[in-house]
């Protein structure tokens, strides 16, 4: 589904990715984890073509994505920070995205699911953070695409919405879709992810199942296992 080879990216002096290789097969939920600033969002944005890599190749659906844009038709993306044009109404935004993508969509159900009906005629600038995130989720899930990329989908959601989001993700998985997700909430990751990819210092530090990670770090708790990677590496760098 996604092949990444020798990916390098530098933002002025800050080397974010240094020779990252990654292979994501079709089907299943992959969680991309790593400490703050480890390049999770950069990796996602490179896959989407929003950030341009200095070196290395990325292929999505078996084709290199350099200077391409049509492949994005097959990707649904939930950005980390929901930045919307503030003078638009929710209804107008949904209509606009539908018009731009020209795909069949099922937004009605999702609007119902997240209780967004009363907000449809409100301007996006007046919405709260959590409501904006719900709009964000509706926009990402309303199209039917084989690949989903969710960057911090849980930000600002209340417990009820979080449960619905998890159900939504599971439903998409059962349809045989590939889902990439980043999150700092380990409980959420443990619940939904089939496999985790741990980024550290611009490279993949670990890729595999959660049980394998716990074995590797000899921890019984997932959150501690993740923390163990972080402390182990700081120890080695200090020494």
């Amino acid at each position, binding site marked *: 589904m996604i092949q990444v080879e020798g990916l390098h990216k530098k*933002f002025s002096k800050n080397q974010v990715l240094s020779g990252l290789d990654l292979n994501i097969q079709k089907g299943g939920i992959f969680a991309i984890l790593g400490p703050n600033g480890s390049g999770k969002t950069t990796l996602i*944005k490179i896959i*989407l*073509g*929003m*950030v*341009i890599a200095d070196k290395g190749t990325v292929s999505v659906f078996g084709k290199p994505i350099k*200077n391409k*844009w*049509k*492949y*994005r*038709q097959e*990707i649904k*993306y939930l*950005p980390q920070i929901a*930045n*919307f*044009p*503030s*003078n638009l109404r929710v209804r107008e935004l949904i209509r*606009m*995205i539908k*018009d*731009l*993508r020209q795909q069949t969509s099922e937004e009605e159900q999702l609007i119902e699911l997240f209780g967004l009906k009363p907000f449809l005629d409100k301007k996006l600038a007046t919405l709260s953070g959590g409501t904006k995130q719900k709009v964000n989720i509706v926009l990402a899930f309303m199209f039917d695409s084989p690949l989903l990329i969710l960057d911090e989908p849980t930000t600002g959601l209340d417990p009820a919405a979080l449960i619905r989001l998890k159900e939504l993700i599971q439903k998409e998985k059962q349809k045989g879709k590939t889902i990439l997700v980043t999150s700092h909430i380990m409980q959420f990751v443990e619940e939904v992810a089939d496999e985790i990819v741990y980024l550290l210092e611009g490279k993949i530090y670990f890729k595999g199942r959660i049980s394998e990670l716990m074995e590797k770090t000899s921890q019984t708790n997932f959150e501690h296992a993740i923390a163990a990677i972080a402390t182990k590496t700081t120890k080695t760098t200090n020494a």
Partner: protein
Amino acid sequence: MLKILKYSFYDLMRSRWSYVYFLFYLALGFVLLFLNNDVSKAVITLMNVIIVLVPLIGTIFGVMYYYDSKEFTELLLAQPIKRSSIFLGQYLGVACSLTLSLVLGLGIPFLLYGLFRSDVIFDFSLLLVTGTFLTLIFTAIAFNIAISNENKIKGFGYAVLAWLFLAVVYDGLFLMSLIVFEEYPLDSFSLTATMLNPIDLSRTLILLKLDISALLGYTGAVFKEFFGTNSGLIISIVMLFLWTVLPTWRLVYKSKRKDF
């Protein structure tokens, strides 16, 4: 690209500033025509206003729109749309709405006054054509500056400086060099210097069409000989065209390489 253009255009058409800009030209057109009672004088006064104001508004609107629509751009970048379409669409959306304000704002009073019965219709259309070119040129320059500067304040500053340079400082330098080198033949130098600045080029083009070049003395005669002919007019239009195409091309080039 057309879809982005449409959305940017509608977005601007809903904003108050497009109407302010339109109403300003409407008022200016009515006042000049009905106080002057002389269409060709009104055209000259309008030219003086347009030559300075159109580039300024194009620059400021261009920079403001680019920074304001950052979120919109980010949203679009994740959609299946070509990068160049996003930026060209936004650029043309701004330029078209500004041009529409200009053409309608000035066109309505002139039509009501009876433009078609007067013989200055050609001068007037030249005024609108150069106004359109200046809008396209300066909006493109503004988008270029904005895409190269992440910092809003810096981008705004550079854009205003660019306008100030082309509208005011350039003329000063030009005049000074004419005085310093007055002992040398300067015909081709001043012709070239005029061609290289879109504001000067537009001004000269309109002035010479208005048959007041006799006031300009010998240089005026040289200019008249060059710009007054059809080939001169064509070369000038080509220059204005180049001034439009080059910044637009750089905008597309830059947008393909930028990280968001």
